[in-house]
């Protein structure tokens, strides 16, 4: 199958919105992240703008993963977690990313895994681990915050063999 775009990174950009550098939390420095990872603001004892993995809230998503294959053996290797920085993306973007929930929340808890079927035009939120998803995981998990009303993106192209199972999104953050 011939693909229109080689998808060698976690998240690639078809239209660019707002982007700026932010500090990432110690948890993210240790745990790493994929390109397209959703993040939310957290407090810091220092005078800095600090983000952590999203749990459904958002400030935006990180463009580049902390340890992507394409960065190996280059000056970018490990540079983001080393310096505690990431590039936060907000506003309106058109992206294609593999950082989305492939399986339903319930099936990820107890199995067997059941695929999330994404449909073009569908509204998306961030999951409890900050990946794009069609499910309201606050509601499904009994989170006291109730329903997640933070609409952040809509599906432009559903995952398929043709696009390496990436999802294409129009963000609205």
């Amino acid at each position, binding site marked *: 199958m011939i693909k229109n775009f080689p998808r060698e990174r976690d998240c690639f950009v078809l239209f660019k*919105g*707002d982007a*700026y550098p932010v500090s990432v939390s110690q948890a993210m420095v240790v745990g790493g992240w994929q390109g397209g990872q959703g993040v*939310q*603001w*957290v*407090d*810091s*004892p*220092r*005078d*800095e*703008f*600090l983000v952590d993995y999203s749990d459904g*809230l958002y*400030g*935006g998503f990180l463009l580049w993963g902390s340890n992507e294959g394409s960065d190996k053996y280059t000056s970018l290797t490990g540079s983001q977690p080393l310096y505690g920085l990431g590039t936060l993306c*907000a*506003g309106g973007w058109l992206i294609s990313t593999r950082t989305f929930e492939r399986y339903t929340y319930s099936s990820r808890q107890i199995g067997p895994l059941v695929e999330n079927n994404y449909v073009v035009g569908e509204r998306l939120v961030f999951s409890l681990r900050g990946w794009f998803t069609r499910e309201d995981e606050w509601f499904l998990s009994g989170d006291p915050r109730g329903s997640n009303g933070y609409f952040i993106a809509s599906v432009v192209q559903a995952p398929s063999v043709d696009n390496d199972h990436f999802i294409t999104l129009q963000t609205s*953050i």
Partner: protein
Amino acid sequence: MSEILRSRDCLVFFKGDSQTVIVSPQMAAGGWPGGQGVRWVQGVGDERVVTYSNGLYGGFLMWGSEEEGDLFTAATHQQPHYRYATMFSGGCLISTSSYERYTYVSRLGGPLVPLVYSSNDILYLSLRGLWTKEDEMSLSGSPLAPAFFTGFVAQIPKAANKLFLGIQTSM
């Protein structure tokens, strides 16, 4: 010790949309701090005029009318004199001292009760156009309620940032 110099009312870390607007006679007379929320009002002729926000918004004014940083420069009092200002909207990342420090109810009747901001709090503009976590349109019984969502808290006020509020705007 603040790591970023905050010698103005509103600092911009990421710039969204900006445009020049005409300020109302009330604003020209009363002045405003940088970061002041504004709303559109009907002008005379072909003007785009803003005045102090009451919860509605067109954006916020980047520079205050009489900031210390402008004194003894060509910018001294220039905006109110010529009745113009630079309005920001869209997605910005800012740090500003123009936010409500006390709850709406306590500002009316006292004693003053501090507003405690947390990261990711949803923000609105207050009835006088300052950033706040309270929906003052609803609290005041305004027929225009509810207030519009205008941004998120990106950095809470603290000694390390000279008690400025970090905001990711969404206007």
